[in-house]
């Protein structure tokens, strides 16, 4: 079933990506085509099949809780688009 325009806009807002008018149309068509390819999975009987998250076979890995050197904060801030002192600067999160 093709995606409706409102669905495309909803997905974009969940993903926090702005789209132009043209893109809403284009991605709607393309995503619908791709979703159609996924229908083949309905042929597959997966009742009772345990899902695989990754194929590595490892469980949660623990380490000793020992403090180690980490990156220098000056280095970390080198790529900051905006900084103020030792902080990343962002737009106001809460309205006044």
């Amino acid at each position: 079933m093709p995606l409706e325009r409102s669905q495309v806009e909803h997905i974009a807002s969940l993903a926090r990506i702005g789209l132009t008018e043209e893109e809403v149309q284009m991605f709607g068509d393309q995503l619908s085509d791709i979703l159609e390819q996924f229908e083949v999975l309905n042929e597959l009987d997966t009742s009772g099949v345990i899902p695989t998250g990754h194929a590595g076979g490892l469980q949660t890995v623990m380490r000793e809780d020992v403090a180690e050197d980490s990156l220098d904060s000056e280095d970390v801030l080198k790529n900051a688009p905006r900084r103020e002192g030792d902080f990343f600067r962002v737009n106001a999160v809460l309205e006044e």
Partner: protein
Amino acid sequence: MAELNWLSIQDAHAQLKSRQISSLELTQACLKQIDAVEGRVQSFLTLTPEIALAQAADADKLLAAGQGGPLTGVPVQIKDVMSTKGVPTTCASRMLENYVPVYNATAVERLMSQGAVMLGKGNMDEFAMGSSCENSAFHPTMNPWDLERVPGGSSGGAAASVAAGETIFSLGSDTGGSVRQPAALCGVVGLKPTYGLVSRYGLIAFASSLDQIGPVTRTVADSAVVLNAIAGHDPKDSTSLPQEPKDYTARLGQDIKGLRLGVPEEYFVDGMEPGIRKAVEQAVSDLEGLGASVRPVSLPTTKYALACYYIIAPSECSANLARYDGVKYGYSYQDTDDLWEAMEKTREYGFGPEVTRRVMLGTYALSSGYYDAYYLKAQQARTLIKQDFDRVFQDVDALVTPTSPVTAFKLGEMTGDPVQMYLIDVCTLPVNIAGLPGLSVPCGFSDGLPVGMQLIGPHFSEELLLRIGHAYESANQWVAARAKI
């Protein structure tokens, strides 16, 4: 001293060690080739000749003192998805156009600590999403065998640079075929190691349960040499598997008599180029001639792998790429005081169309009401695909398949149709889904364009795959074929 830039790692090492050549000469030969052909091939996003020459000088000092290892003084191109301290790492995205990492990826660190010489950073599809290198935000890369054609992707730069004689080897990354498919399309060797064998620390994440770093080289033996350098447990990657160090070159040269090879019919898909079928069937018969026993096998869940992959990979991608919010690093839209508008514009302008497509696809598959139908279903399909491989590996030691159903196609030929582009990965992505190793080895030509055969084995069977690939390569002349560039 002609054409040092075309040497294999092993030949270069032999000549460096005996001081027939210096690393400076070898590095300069590569830089000279880059000067001559890079305008046409465009396999690099960043060139680092100053770093390369300084590292070559350091390597020469070590070598002169009788020190150094198999990679000391050997030039390498690093795919621009791996973090390189002090050197821009863009992922071929506007989002990271000005990003300069403050640490090295573990795989890069290991190469550098063993004296490899970094020539620069390799072009790729943006965030490693694509099969043609055309999704790079900066420029395409051309296939050295035919400059009107793509090198494959996403590690297109890695494969093209080796095939064009610009570097001795490259490091790429493979999430659904991104090392093996471009290696096949460019007539070079590409290895995707077992998931967890090579640390992903510093590899900019696309789909964390699938991503794996792997070498692109001229010979199978070179692939083993690079794997020796980059494999091994890393406490900085929690999915890195504890393992004993192994010499992957140890069994190269052993014959393959008595090995049981399976040929899965499902990998010879409808629409595959006849020349590819012919070349791979000939390779299978050559392997039989070398003493292997060959039998047809069936992996019935293969037809579900594409859908499974294109749900799982975009889902993980949508989560991983949520970090690009314009706050900590990367492109940041600043012409607004509104937090959400800034984020939406940052991502609108920072991401190219394929990345946006996959982020949206993954967001949808994970969203409320669709999770069970898509993401959960795909993870269950993943279990069944994995079980299919487990079953078949009870009867055979390894599988032989085509690497790609198509040879290098023309630039622009597929860009309008994402589904067609996704289908190109049909032979490679089941390997990532199951976390297996896969090796692509050149096995001839179809209409003058390279064809690759893929060897697939159980987890941690790299040594076996390399041994089979080496035996095949040694019995054929494909390794000597060189693009006329």
